[in-house]
């Protein structure tokens, strides 16, 4: 049966250069003296080290644990001692350093105890995803998105699982060689993925420039009814997820959506092989196949390389660099980026090391003004207007670039490839994207600061109001207490007065002698005299009275 195929917009036919690295079988790379394992080898949160410096680790032992949902653990790719956890150069276009775990290998390459848990058909799908997460498996196509997330149907009915063996970028042959040499492992992985997703059918897409791979896969799947190997005509960038979906099914993936929404999941063939090893053999992902190629390296080939191997060690195993090497590119000539040093370790997302001479890649030549030829728009696989995006990025009009769907750009490089003026269009788009992200981060920070400032302000106001209220209450309480105190004082004064009156009366009584009855005239006179004397010395008497009163 000939299957109907569709076509995506645009695309180009760059020279393939794939023969050089397919002349030899995949060789196992040597274990280097030092393995440098960056904590950030995938999309999402960096992993967190779970070993200490000086600790001895075995091959396959987890050395860094995932943080959060979109993250993946990292395992020791050989046995040895952890000698450092520090910032080292990592493969990144910035040429910057990031935290890495450095292992000094002991040469024994001793595995940690491992075995498959059960045949995959007996494992519950959510547990299956957990096993895949714990094996540190991320997409090996180049982006490095944690695979277990893409194996969760999330309540959707998955119609098709697509295995991407397109490998459309020039020079790269790692998936090609894997399909030629080990189609069974890919197939075994495909069945596990199909089981996890409950997908109705599996399509394995291979470009027609890889006939040997196609034959090998075809032969391996001869007895399967729900797994189909499809040969697609070579066209760059057919390996893009959304482009491949369009070619195989004719369906368009929504601009800001996932293929999952239209019932399709796409994984790389090498990811399938890694999942097979994780589930059927119990081995975590600790190595991958890497193409080392380009005219700048003496023996181009594919190697099975443990993660963390320095690029220099790998180049040495391929006969070293030639004199006319211009630069070392990680990834392909279309989407890769030049490395600042060969001390950089190989990570999960490294699919190709291209030692390019001046003839291999167009050196950045003199840039000329845009002549508005429109070639860029005609080759864009996502039907964008690169020319417009270029104007806006150049003028730093980032809002406009977003209006023209900058974030749908997959940075495939077709537009820059065909540009007759050599304008570094992709560079402009990457510049605009990172600027927009930075602005968004700044905005978030400003919003947080505003919120915290407002909160602080309201707290201060509240505290002030509370303090004022407290003071007012205290004052009121004091005021309420005052009359009571006055009253008490008055009572006291009254009591004193009463006592004084009593004392006075008593004194008067005492002063009025008891033997005043039946007095003789002489006695009466004496008394009157005494009284008149007393009256004359009234002040001292009063003083005595007062004293007496106080004493009562």
């Amino acid at each position, binding site marked *: 049966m000939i299957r109907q195929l569709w076509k995506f917009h645009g695309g180009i036919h760059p020279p393939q250069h794939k023969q050089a690295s397919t002349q030899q079988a995949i060789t196992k790379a040597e274990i280097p003296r030092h393995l440098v394992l960056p904590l*950030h080898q995938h999309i999402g949160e960096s992993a967190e080290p779970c070993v200490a410096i000086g600790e001895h680790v075995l091959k396959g032992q987890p050395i860094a644990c995932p943080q959060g949902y979109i993250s993946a653990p990292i395992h020791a790719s050989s046995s040895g001692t952890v000698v450092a956890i520090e910032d080292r150069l990592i493969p990144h276009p*910035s040429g910057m350093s990031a935290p890495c775990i450095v292992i000094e290998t002991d040469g024994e390459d001793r595995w940690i105890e491992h075995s498959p848990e059960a045949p995959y058909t007996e494992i519950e799908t959510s547990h299956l995803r957990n096993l895949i997460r714990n094996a540190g498996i991320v997409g090996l196509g180049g982006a490095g998105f944690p695979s277990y997330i893409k194996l969760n149907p999330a309540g959707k009915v998955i119609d098709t699982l697509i295995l991407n063996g397109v490998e459309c970028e020039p020079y790269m042959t790692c998936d090609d060689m894997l399909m030629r040499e080990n189609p069974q492992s890919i197939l075994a992985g495909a069945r596990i993925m199909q089981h996890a997703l409950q997908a109705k059918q599996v399509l394995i897409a291979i470009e027609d420039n890889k006939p040997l791979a196609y034959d090998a896969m075809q032969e391996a799947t001869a007895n399967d009814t729900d797994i189909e190997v499809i040969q697609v005509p070579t066209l760059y960038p057919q390996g893009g997820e959304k482009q491949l979906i369009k070619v195989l099914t004719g369906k368009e993936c929504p601009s800001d959506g996932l293929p999952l929404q239209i019932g399709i999941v796409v994984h790389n063939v090498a990811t399938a092989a890694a999942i097979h090893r994780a589930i059927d053999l119990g081995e975590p992902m600790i190595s991958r196949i890497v193409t080392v190629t380009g005219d700048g390296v003496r023996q181009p080939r594919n190697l099975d390389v443990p993660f963390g191997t320095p690029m220099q060690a790998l180049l040495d195993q391929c006969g070293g660099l030639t004199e006319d090497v211009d630069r070392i590119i990680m990834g392909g000539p279309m989407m890769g980026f030049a490395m600042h040093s060969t001390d950089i370790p190989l990570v999960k997302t490294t699919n190709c090391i291209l030692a390019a001479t001046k003839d291999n890649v167009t050196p950045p030549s*003199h*840039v000329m003004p845009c002549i508005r030829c429109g070639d860029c728009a005609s080759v864009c696989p996502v039907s964008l207007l690169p020319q417009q995006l270029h104007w806006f990025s*150049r003028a730093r009009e980032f809002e406009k670039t977003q209006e023209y769907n900058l974030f749908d750009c997959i940075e495939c490089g077709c537009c820059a490839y065909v540009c007759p*003026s050599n304008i570094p269009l992709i560079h402009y788009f990457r510049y605009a994207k990172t600027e927009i992200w930075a602005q968004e981060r700044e905005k978030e920070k*400003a919003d*947080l600061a505003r919120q915290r*400032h407002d*909160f602080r302000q309201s707290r201060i106001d509240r505290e002030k109001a509370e303090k004022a209220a407290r003071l007012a209450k205290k004052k009121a309480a004091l005021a309420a207490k005052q009359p009571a105190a006055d009253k008490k004082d008055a009572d006291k004064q009254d009591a004193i007065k009463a006592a004084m009156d009593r004392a006075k009366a008593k004194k008067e009584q005492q002063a009025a002698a008891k033997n005043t009855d039946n007095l003789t005239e002489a006695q009466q006179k004496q008394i009157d005299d005494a009284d008149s004397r007393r009256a004359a010395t009234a002040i001292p008497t009063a003083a005595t009275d007062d004293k007496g009163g106080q004493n009562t």
Partner: protein
Amino acid sequence: MLTAILALTALALLFGLLLGFAAVRFRVEGDPLAEKIDAILPQTQCGQCGYPGCRPYAEAIASGEAEINRCPPGGETTIIALADLLGCDPIPLDEEVGEEKPFTVAVIDEKTCIGCTLCIQACPVDAILGAAKQMHTVIESECTGCELCVEPCPVDCITMEPVKMDIFHWKWPYPEQSEEQPAKRPKSQPGAAAS
């Protein structure tokens, strides 16, 4: 003649009433312009503009009381954004208020800190953690770099340090080889392309 006057008076009255009604019925609470200006300001809350925080400065700009060039942390970008919003010409940053500096965050030397809480009281966004006679520390992710905590410290243990650049904050540089630099063009094709 009289009809015209009457008609126009009637119309004027009618529209006057309509406008009056609309002014009451569709009244907008708060100051939407100040809000928009506040959204552009960097929220450093440093007070370098002479107002106690970003919001008061935004209100001052909205009322025409302050110029748009008094925000050193926002720098040129903020001035341009404000000029865009307000429809006026961008003017250079007022030298009197300070100069545009790269973003820094406060770092407390924890060995020297005596735990006086003065910096905590100065921080406009509550980004300093600590208690009396306990060591203080700055929550880096929440620090706006306003420098308001530096001055009150009695033992000078707070320094402003640039944020360490990492791969998550790295930005692609502006392409150097812009078409505006035609100097490298071979001399054999003079004027081949008009720039």
